[in-house]
């Protein structure tokens, strides 16, 4: 198709401007022909004849160019005549004449490229955030009410679903949570050893490790991993069920989606996250103790006795007590965003991303709030 050549030859016969279209008027040659046709500037009222006798091939783009020329020149006041149209091309010309139009195509432009647009967007996002918080609180209330109802009639609790969720969110997460906690323990012990050696206080590496892992990092790391792993899964599962109308089907069958889908997930996570936290604490300390032995030569019995000096069970509980709160945040947001999915597949992806970001954000905010709370309580 590289050899396609199309020409437009203008000649004058008895005051009539004759435009002779020749060759292959195809999409491939359209750009040049478009330029050529736009350069035409006949004097007003001069009759124009477009001679189509020399066309070898033409497609809808070529036909449109010729018909556009006809329309535009007619609009300028030049009488236009199409002549010598090959009958095999006639249906194409008819079709293009019926389908084509000179009205410009509108392209929606993003509006935040101006200052006003930016401010408008900022406002819209802020209002959207408020509205979302409000709806999330509403959802929280709905779930609480459902839980209350269930405590009155515990037989309705879906134990099988809950145990299945505990396996999904707990047992299946053991490998990744354990490995990451172990590695974080190794890193903290190594960094601590490096700094504290300068003061000859290597043994306090154990204190640093214990306080860091038990109070903060164990629970925070676990919550972040579970938000990415299970929170997103909640949104995707419930969201997919919304796309396939399963949730609507549930309602018509008299099942309460909150009771069937949300409560088992929430309860499962409330139980598994504290357990996973304890496990992560243990793995973190294990990693730290191995590193302490390798880098500082602190043997295991020595490590244990220093550990006993450094922290009491209270430090452990301060960490673990946060886990159910984080679990509630993750499960609530995961399920809530799942219900926010509209009937399209792409919104599943969008809400899942949103759920992970919101859950991690709120977990860290809650952790900060706990820090302030504990420092006020002086624990």
């Amino acid at each position: 198709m590289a050899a396609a050549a199309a020409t437009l030859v203008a000649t004058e016969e008895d005051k009539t401007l004759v435009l002779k279209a020749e060759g292959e008027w195809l999409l491939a040659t359209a750009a040049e022909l478009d330029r050529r046709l736009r350069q035409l500037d006949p004097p007003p009222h001069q009759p124009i004849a477009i001679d189509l006798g020399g066309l070898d091939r033409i497609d809808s783009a070529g036909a449109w160019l010729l018909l556009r020329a006809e329309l535009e020149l007619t609009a300028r006041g030049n009488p236009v005549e199409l002549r010598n149209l090959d009958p095999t091309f006639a249906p194409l010309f008819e079709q293009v004449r019926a389908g084509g139009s000179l009205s410009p195509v509108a392209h929606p432009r993003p509006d935040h490229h101006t200052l006003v647009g930016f401010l408008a967007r900022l406002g819209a996002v802020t209002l959207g955030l408020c509205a979302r918080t409000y709806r999330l609180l509403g959802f929280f209330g709905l779930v609480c009410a459902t839980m209350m109802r269930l405590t009155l009639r515990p037989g309705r609790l879906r134990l099988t679903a809950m145990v299945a969720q505990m396996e999904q969110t707990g047992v299946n997460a053991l490998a990744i949570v354990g490995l990451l906690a172990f590695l974080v323990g190794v890193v903290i012990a190594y960094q601590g050893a490096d700094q504290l050696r300068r003061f000859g206080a290597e043994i306090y590496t154990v204190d640093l490790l214990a306080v860091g892992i038990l109070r903060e990092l164990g629970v925070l790391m676990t919550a972040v991993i579970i938000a990415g792993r299970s929170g997103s899964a909640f949104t995707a599962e419930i969201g997919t069920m919304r796309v396939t109308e399963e949730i609507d089907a549930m309602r018509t069958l008299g099942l309460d989606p909150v009771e069937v889908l949300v409560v088992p997930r929430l309860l499962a996570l409330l139980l598994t996250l504290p357990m996973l936290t304890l496990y992560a604490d243990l793995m973190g300390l294990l990693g730290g103790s191995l590193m302490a032995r390798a880098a500082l030569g602190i043997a295991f019995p020595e490590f244990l006795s220093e550990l006993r000096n450094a922290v009491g069970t209270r430090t452990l509980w301060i960490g673990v007590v946060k886990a159910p709160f984080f679990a509630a945040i993750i499960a609530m947001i995961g399920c809530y965003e799942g219900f926010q999915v509209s009937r399209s597949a792409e919104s599943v992806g969008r809400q899942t991303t949103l759920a992970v970001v919101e859950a991690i954000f709120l977990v860290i905010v809650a952790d900060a709030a706990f820090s302030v709370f504990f420092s006020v309580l002086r624990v």
Partner: protein
Amino acid sequence: MKPAPPQQPIISVRGLVNRFGAETVHDGLDLEVYAGEVLGVVGGSGTGKSVLLRTIIGLNRPAEGTIEVFGTDLLALAESERREIEKRWGVLFQEGALFSSLTVAQNIEVPLKEFYDLPRGLMDEIAALKIGLAGLPGDAAAKFPAQLSGGMRKRAGLARALALDPEILFLDEPTSGLDAIAAAEFDQLIRDLQQSLGLTVFMVTHDIDSLFAVCDRVAVLVDKKIRVGTLDQILRDDHPWIRNYFHGPRGRAASAAQAGAARLALSDPA
């Protein structure tokens, strides 16, 4: 009055074998599609109608067999040569498969931008032309796919399939999900465009009305192979599935309606 199809194959499939795991979908399937005809492909669920279409357009690599389009063996082509061939056909997927982040006009401009260096204004005009050809109102150009109804999405998908003025149009279930009126209009649209733009149409369908309304020849997928013929030939075929399909209640209704329309056309003095 339908002109007799010129006997020159534009698509030719030979000895096609498609397997998914242990299941053989096609087993030594031969098919020829002639330039300028409308071929309707029918078959029961799971007989691999869409698989056949996807295999011809290169989305599914067959286990065995050759596929020639425009006289070139597609399976032996390099990537760049394939693209040259792909420019010469358009595909309408079942749900339209429009890019959801782009407006209808931008969807149509995607292939134009990819393959040709056209000025902005002309590109918009061509997009508007295709939108008009597909029978959509002009204000559909600025809409996003999510704002369109199912029937409009199909028309927009058709407009995009027509963007490069293809020689072959592949349609996957073009009338599925449309109501009877919209389906009949879509059939008519395909017929009009096929005749005015000189297209060859390969149409997978399960809509028996479409077969009677627009197809020059019908291909039926039975027993992992294909039987092709004019509608009359296929109607006389005594394969049990084909008999069931065309002589069941729906088939009879469609052929009765068609015969009625033909009688009406004959008695029309003009």
